[in-house]
């Protein structure tokens, strides 16, 4: 005998997000680094910002943490978001290499793209799939994701710097069209 049963999941809330328009070249643009404080995230992103600036004629305008009281497991503060939006043309953020930090780094990325700031989120091979799924869940399946070897935490500084240097071409491609 056929029975009718309810589906248990219901409707979802937010509408899809589109990527911010990408610049043709990075020359003259202002780069921001949003460091979520995960081990070696700042080292990696700062180096990446420096190398991008040196290669393209951009400038590293801001290197910031997520703001007072905020960290990898929370969104960045409104003040930091406002500053990045006003004073940067592109942003590098991360690292998305655990569960909650992935979710919140992608969240910050989605907010920045929505504010028309092209943003690259740095993840690792261990959390690349999760980063893509989380981004799709936030309505941004084509998020700009830079994938680094896993793990970042506990890896020697020299190796982290080498990984950043090796990623410069890929990050330029992600941020431009």
């Amino acid at each position, binding site marked *: 005998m056929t029975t009718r049963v*309810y589906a248990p999941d219901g409707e979802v809330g937010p509408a899809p997000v589109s990527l911010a328009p990408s610049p043709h070249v990075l020359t003259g643009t202002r780069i921001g680094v949003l460091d979520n404080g995960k081990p070696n995230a700042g080292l990696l992103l700062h180096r990446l910002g420096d190398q991008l600036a040196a290669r393209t004629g951009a400038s590293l305008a801001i290197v910031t943490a997520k703001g007072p009281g905020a960290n990898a497991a929370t969104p960045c503060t409104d003040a930091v978001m406002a500053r990045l939006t006003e004073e940067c043309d592109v942003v590098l953020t991360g690292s998305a290499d655990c*569960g909650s930090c992935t979710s919140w780094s992608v969240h910050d990325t989605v907010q920045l793209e929505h504010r028309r700031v092209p943003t690259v989120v740095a993840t690792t091979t261990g959390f690349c799939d999760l980063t893509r799924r989380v981004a799709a869940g936030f309505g941004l399946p084509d998020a700009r994701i830079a994938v680094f070897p896993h793990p970042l935490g506990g890896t020697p500084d020299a190796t982290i710097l080498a990984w950043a240097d090796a990623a410069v071409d890929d990050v330029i491609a992600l941020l431009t069209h």
Partner: protein
Amino acid sequence: MSIEFGTGAGTRSAEPGLLELPQSSPEALLELYESRGWGDGLPLVPPTPDRVDAMLAHTDGDPEEILGVLPPRFGQATRRLVAINAVLAGCTPAVMPVLVTAARALAQPALNLRGVNATTHPVAPLLVVHGKVVERAGFNAGIGVFGPGTRANATVGRAVRLLLLHVAGARPGDGDAAQHGQPSKFSYCIAENLAASPWEAYPRSRGVDAPSAITIHCGENPHNVHDMESGTPGPILDKCATVMATFGQNNAPIAMGEYFVLLGPEHAATIAAAGWSRDDVALYLYQRARRPAGEFRRAFESRAWMPWMESVPDDDPLPMTGHPDNIRVLVTGGAGKHSCIVPSWGMTSSVTLPVEG
């Protein structure tokens, strides 16, 4: 669009869809749900319109009212969806007001459900039921409070998890990255044993003065404290402090995290007989659950501390949490000489709300 940090409550959602189930057997429902990525792996009660309506009869208001939007899926938790998941979990209709309130609590920004669901940490929301609804809906506050064996505790905890799986999208691997999970992710619901508590009801101590209330604390499984020797508060609480002062838990690097100290009635009676209040217990544990600051610094490269904590010299003792108010004390369980500690995931604050109705 903009992503809001409110609860998303108040607007109205469309009625969820009905599916054809070719046979009414338990296996057929399990197969249908499994094929769609639903369920917790255990048998489910079919959420037929009749059963869901019977559940809805125990809650007032529009069935399509959105109680909260639950991340990461941003599913809109309506009264009807709460009722559907309550049926699936095997709940009786009497628990509906508790579950409706739980859905509201899960959407509170302070609870940080997005982080709780997303993290690799094994965290699960512990639902504590307080007040008159405990007896009225058949919750167990005594022996074996964490289970198994009592339908209300078992099924309400399970219904909360089904809401998280279905509405919030906390499927392991997608919306929930918990590396191992933990058994309390199946069901995690207890009741405060007010009759055996020497102190006022926990919600009242948090400023919630209602006939019934719930608290949700997002934490680890309970960590046991066994003390059958002590006739004074100090030694009992010193043992609690040793359970709190370990470095494998997120409270160590995250100073805003809470501890729920769930005292058995006999430990609580010994402590209260010496004239100690609930706040005295929290203050004592804040003083005693400490380790040298340098040990924290060596163990954690990344720390979410209060600014003052960074100034404590390496050799001086540093508390496991940033403020005594982060240590929450209540009485639950039955006869015996055990208590337990539920550490926090960290970046979350517990929520206590009055139960509606």
